[in-house]
């Protein structure tokens, strides 16, 4: 019977070794550099775990045959393939994370200054720009890359800097890219403080960055805060029906927060539920990254275009803010346009820092939260548009 005992050493390949290095890098970034540790630590560990040979964590059965890796359309037959299947493929996890995000979000700054909603929309240009570039590259190199219109859309969504939305869209449009897209989205979100400042500096003058914005935003009433998620859900979902799962949950979570009578539910959504879902999301995305799925030229394209999408979104946000200043009496500081890249609250934090550097009187944090939150809505809506056309 000992002859049946098998260690994993024989199953090691160069691919699994490369994946250990990638998993190790993600753990290093999360633990030592504190970059998005809540996601990169579970993802990094999952990557290492799933690439240990014969562990069978992601086993899937297709027509009676057992496959070691997750197969889209198959029957999950092991612990992590079940979590991945029922959590991600069935879309439960990203959608309910949006419930938690809604319960954590204060729409006050958006309601007080609805103009900032436009900036959140402006930053979605990066999504479409990366989409078209991906499409071009994909059609130019059909032998190397399998990137069609759906894959291009899934890659473009990274530019919105919104993890759950990117994962949700990838699952619908290009499921085999989900690992690369999730990792790209979350690492670039963590890198927002490095990516954004040079772009902002390039596009604005010292004088523009020093534009002073009054701190006191209008006081927002409780009634407005309760009505906002309801009205926003109805309008956005009527306009873009396929955004219903994400926007619906987001606004519902926010209603729980603002209603004043469901604090227990809001707290659970924002804390306990969110943490449970984050563990399941991180670990299952990591476990999806087996060598055969991840070490592909398409993954490189995801990383290259992802950062380009972030940069373009930042640039368009800033340029749109400058454009709006041409028509308005009360000038806005164009830096806040960069906060339209949703990455809550990193982008707002970048804006705050740069504004203060240019003018010590400036305190743009609250002003930046408007476009920041509008960016979340914008990306979920952009994903809904893609799903409506391609899904």
């Amino acid at each position, binding site marked *: 019977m000992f002859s049946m005992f098998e260690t994993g050493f024989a199953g090691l390949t160069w691919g699994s070794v490369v994946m250990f290095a990638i998993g190790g890098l993600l753990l290093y970034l999360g633990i030592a550099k504190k970059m998005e540790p809540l996601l990169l630590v579970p993802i990094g560990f999952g990557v290492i775990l799933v690439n240990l040979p014969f562990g069978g964590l992601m086993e899937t059965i297709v027509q009676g045959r057992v496959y070691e890796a997750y197969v889209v359309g198959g029957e999950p037959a092991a612990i992590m393939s079940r979590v991945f299947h029922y959590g991600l493929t069935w879309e439960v996890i990203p959608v309910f994370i949006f419930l938690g995000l809604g319960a954590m979000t204060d729409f006050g700054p958006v309601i007080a200054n609805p103009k900032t909603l436009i900036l959140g929309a402006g930053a979605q240009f990066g999504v479409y720009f990366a989409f078209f570039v991906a499409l071009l590259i994909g059609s130019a190199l059909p032998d190397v890359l399998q990137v069609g219109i759906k894959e291009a859309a899934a890659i473009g969504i990274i530019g919105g800097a919104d993890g759950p939305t990117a994962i949700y869209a990838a699952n619908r449009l290009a499921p085999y890219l989900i690992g690369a897209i999730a990792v790209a989205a979350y690492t670039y979100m963590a890198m927002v403080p490095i990516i954004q400042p040079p772009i902002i500096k390039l596009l604005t003058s010292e004088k523009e960055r020093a534009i002073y914005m009054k701190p006191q935003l209008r006081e927002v009433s409780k009634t407005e805060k309760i009505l906002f998620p309801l009205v926003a859900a109805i309008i956005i979902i009527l306009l873009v029906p396929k955004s219903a799962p994400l926007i619906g949950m987001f606004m519902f979570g926010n209603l729980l927060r603002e209603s004043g009578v469901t604090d227990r539910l809001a707290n659970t959504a924002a804390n306990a539920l969110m943490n449970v879902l984050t563990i399941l999301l991180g670990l299952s995305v990591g476990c999806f990254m087996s060598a055969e799925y991840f070490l592909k030229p398409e993954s490189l394209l995801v990383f290259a275009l992802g950062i380009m999408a972030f940069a373009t979104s930042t640039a368009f946000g800033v340029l749109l803010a400058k454009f709006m200043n041409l028509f308005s009496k009360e000038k806005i500081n164009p830096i806040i346009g960069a906060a339209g890249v949703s990455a809550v609250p990193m982008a707002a934090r970048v804006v705050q820092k740069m504004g203060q550097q240019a003018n010590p*009187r400036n305190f743009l944090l609250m002003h930046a939260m408007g476009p920041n939150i509008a960016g979340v809505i914008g990306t979920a809506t952009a994903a809904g548009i893609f799903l409506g056309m391609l899904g």
Partner: protein
Amino acid sequence: MAQEKVEFPIAGRIVSVAVKGGDVVEEGDALCVLESMKMENPILAPVGGLVTNINLAPGQTVVTGELITIIEY
């Protein structure tokens, strides 16, 4: 002598206070650090001058518009 009232631009909780009455600050020096929206934000001096009327302690919660200090210059 000119005076500038410095007020909190946002509500939050004071983490630390960097100056005391009688200190001389330069424009852009940190006056205190305010925790707000889960971030620690330094509040900077809008002008250089003499710090007066400062009465803040770490842990204190403040609202928008509350006085931080009056800087004389």
